């Protein structure tokens, strides 16, 4: 919607920014790969019967001892690297996007309301944000993970690992949205169109979401891209610290964690190919974020 409004300007800038074009191509390719993973990948890494330990640790095709069936080799379980990465990227993106959505809805909602109502409500929201900021992401993840384990029946826990991780990441990201939304809302509150709407007697929710929200989408969109990148990295980091996803449903972060074991063992591809992939994805998203920032903040151009 916003992009649509900016389309002439944004499109022009886009066409003239090689970095943004390359980033967009990379990001889109990865996303296509992720979305269509079940159709592209030759092996389903979640289906344990589709691969065999017998094919484990095969190098990429250009290296000696490779099996041409596995272009980028296999990991220690005999999973095709390409398939794992595609599925991994799929999961990472699902987690990232879902976390982002939750964080955005929660953060923007609270931030808008805090900016709109101000006063005590604002103070309370901001103190809650402080509490959240004071809790490192890993702790949030542990907390959510633990609570889920405490209240959910055992048989559901495994299925909900993704949801739990997503929620944990979302909770450590919402503050960004809340702060930005609040600051932007404060600015908008002084704009006369908002006063006009309030004067008319419009419902606060309508003022917030119909009037103010579209006007603060710009900075929020920038935060979204940056936070999508953060979410994907955070997932990888949590995985490294051992509170990520189980190894049999690998995200990119889990693949890297598994790959870390092979850092020195000679099977470099198990670590570096997913890492490269992750970096390419995150860099692309970040570049696009930068690009959006430029579009929405023309003064810095």
């Amino acid at each position, binding site marked *: 919607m916003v992009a649509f*409004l900016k389309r002439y300007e944004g499109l*022009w800038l886009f066409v003239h920014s090689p970095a943004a074009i390359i980033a967009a191509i990379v990001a889109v390719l990865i996303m296509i790969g992720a979305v269509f993973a079940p159709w592209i990948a030759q092996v389903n890494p979640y289906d344990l019967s589709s691969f065999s330990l017998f094919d484990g640790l095969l190098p990429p095709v250009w290296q000696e001892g490779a099996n041409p069936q596995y272009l980028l080799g296999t990991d220690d379980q005999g999973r095709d690297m390409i398939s794992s990465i595609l599925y991994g990227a799929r999961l990472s993106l699902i987690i990232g996007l879902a976390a982002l959505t939750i964080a955005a809805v929660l953060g923007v909602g609270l931030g808008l309301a805090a900016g709109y109502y101000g006063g005590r409500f604002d103070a309370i929201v901001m103190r809650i944000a402080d509490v959240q900021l004071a809790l490192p992401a890993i702790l949030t993840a542990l907390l959510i993970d633990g609570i889920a384990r405490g209240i959910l029946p055992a048989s559901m826990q495994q299925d909900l690992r993704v949801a739990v991780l997503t929620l944990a990441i979302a909770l450590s990201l919402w503050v960004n949205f809340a702060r930005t939304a609040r600051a932007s809302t404060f600015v908008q509150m002084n704009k*006369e169109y908002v*006063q006009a709407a309030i004067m008319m007697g419009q419902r606060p929710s309508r003022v917030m979401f119909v009037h103010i929200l579209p*006007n603060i989408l710009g900075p929020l969109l920038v935060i979204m891209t940056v936070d999508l990148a953060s979410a994907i990295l955070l997932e990888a980091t949590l995985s490294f610290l051992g509170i990520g996803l189980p190894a049999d449903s690998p995200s990119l972060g889990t693949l890297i964690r598994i790959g870390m074991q092979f850092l020195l063992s000679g099977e470099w591809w198990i670590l570096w190919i997913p890492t490269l992939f992750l970096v390419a994805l995150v860099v692309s998203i970040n570049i696009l974020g930068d690009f959006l920032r430029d579009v929405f903040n023309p003064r810095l151009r």
Partner: protein
Amino acid sequence: MLVIKDLAVKFPSRFGEFTAIEDVDMTIKPGEIHGLVGESGAGKSTVGAAVIGLLSAPGYIANGELSLGDTNLRNLTPDQAHEIRGDRISMIFQDPQTSLNPLMTIEDQLIETIQAHSNVSDSAARKRAVDLLEEIGIKNAAERIKAYPHQFSGGMRQRVVIALAICTDPELIIADEPTTALDVAVQSQVLDLIRRLARDRQIAFMLITHDIGVIAQIADRVTVMRKGKVMETGDTPQVLGAPTHPYTQALMDAVPPLDHRIARFRVPEEEGTAGVVTGNTAEKWLLEGQQYALTGLTLQDLCVRFAGPRTSLFRKPEPYVALRDVNLDVRPGSIMGLVGESGSGKSTLAKAITGLITPSSGVMRLGDEILPAGKARSRHHPSRQLVQMVFQDPYSSLNSRHRIGAILTEPLWFYGFVQDAKERERLAAAMLELVGMAPDAIDKYPHQFSGGQRQRIAVARALLARPRFLICDEPTSALDVSIQAEILNLLKDLQSMFGLTILFISHNLAVVRQMADDTAVLRNGVIEEMGATEDLFARPKADYTQTLLSLTPVMPREWQSAG
């Protein structure tokens, strides 16, 4: 002596080159105050920026000569140009609030500037700085110099800005709207100072302004610009008193006179400047809706207090009194003018009436009904519909993310006037027509319109609520004078057509005189004087009103066009 010949400045952009100014000729002699006047987009600031060499990013001088004395300003290296800046040419910016570095003392900024251009010791520089501040009228300069910018009032700050501009004895000062952000009283002092400096120090001033009154008051010569081109140039009495160019003529016509009232401004008939189109569906719809009688407004002993900043745990914060015992009676069907300088409480009054803030005491009555205050006023209170407002800033009063159609149909939908969406759109389009806009504007977004057009849209939006009482809070102060004339004409027409009661808030005495039936003068939250407009302007009783009237720049009567 500054000589500008055939100056052209271009801004390359992705859609090709944009020519900001073209064929500009001008000379300014030492000691001369040269007014550069024009409406927004005329390119007057670009001329100043080109002279001082501070054109913003992609802009460049495409053609022409620029010389100051023997120096050809176009042949300078960037370093040489930087040397000249401050030393021989200096500049004064519009807003004294933002043109001083907030983190440095006045002293540091002055000494730094002096030492940048002459090799003097700190103490010598300080002495010079103190002397200078004394000269431009800052008392107790030796002590005040240690202060930070925020510790000075607006007028004092602009003096400091001027001190910074002249501390290196430049030959030429470019003053870009130096008094626009100032109140009348301060403006007159600053203008006096500029005149004195030109006379005593023989500094040449390029005085860039949109305010013809200011030019009339102090400029020796004047250049009128429009759309990057010079329209007319010459001695001030000649250009303003006997304009030869039709544009200058139109400009003069649009200036509201202070000393008498004219029925209507003369505006050139161009597209989009039209007055009210009569007889369309919107007009009918509005007239249909007049089921209420004319509605007046009475304020009784209205007080507004804000909590001051809390400084101690044990003391209650001192409240800040924004309005004190305001009594105001807006007669049904009349226009009440409310004048006052910035900070006098004008906008607070408007907010109190519209319910955006809660008065601490007092009674407000709309017609015969008591108007509940602030939060006590429910969202469905009828006054929410009956009282509408036209805001000062047309750039912020329309939601830039909404289509004009959405903005205009919102009141129709919200107040439940029209149920059918298509019908709402039709009515909105008709209303646009009524306020002099093309109906196809309905599919566009606010940023596609100029300030004047947006203000028309804002008026249309207010009308679509079928109001009986309209508050206009500085509706024209962000607009160019010719646009102002159009909007004022429009408001007058609408008022007489629909019998609206209007509270017209402005800092501009001349505008109020043209618009208002009655006038109230507000100062520091207190009404100083109130009465019929003609009476009040002709025979002001309060000292404050008298001062205001005397300090407002006026054009000699003989320059004014017959109204």
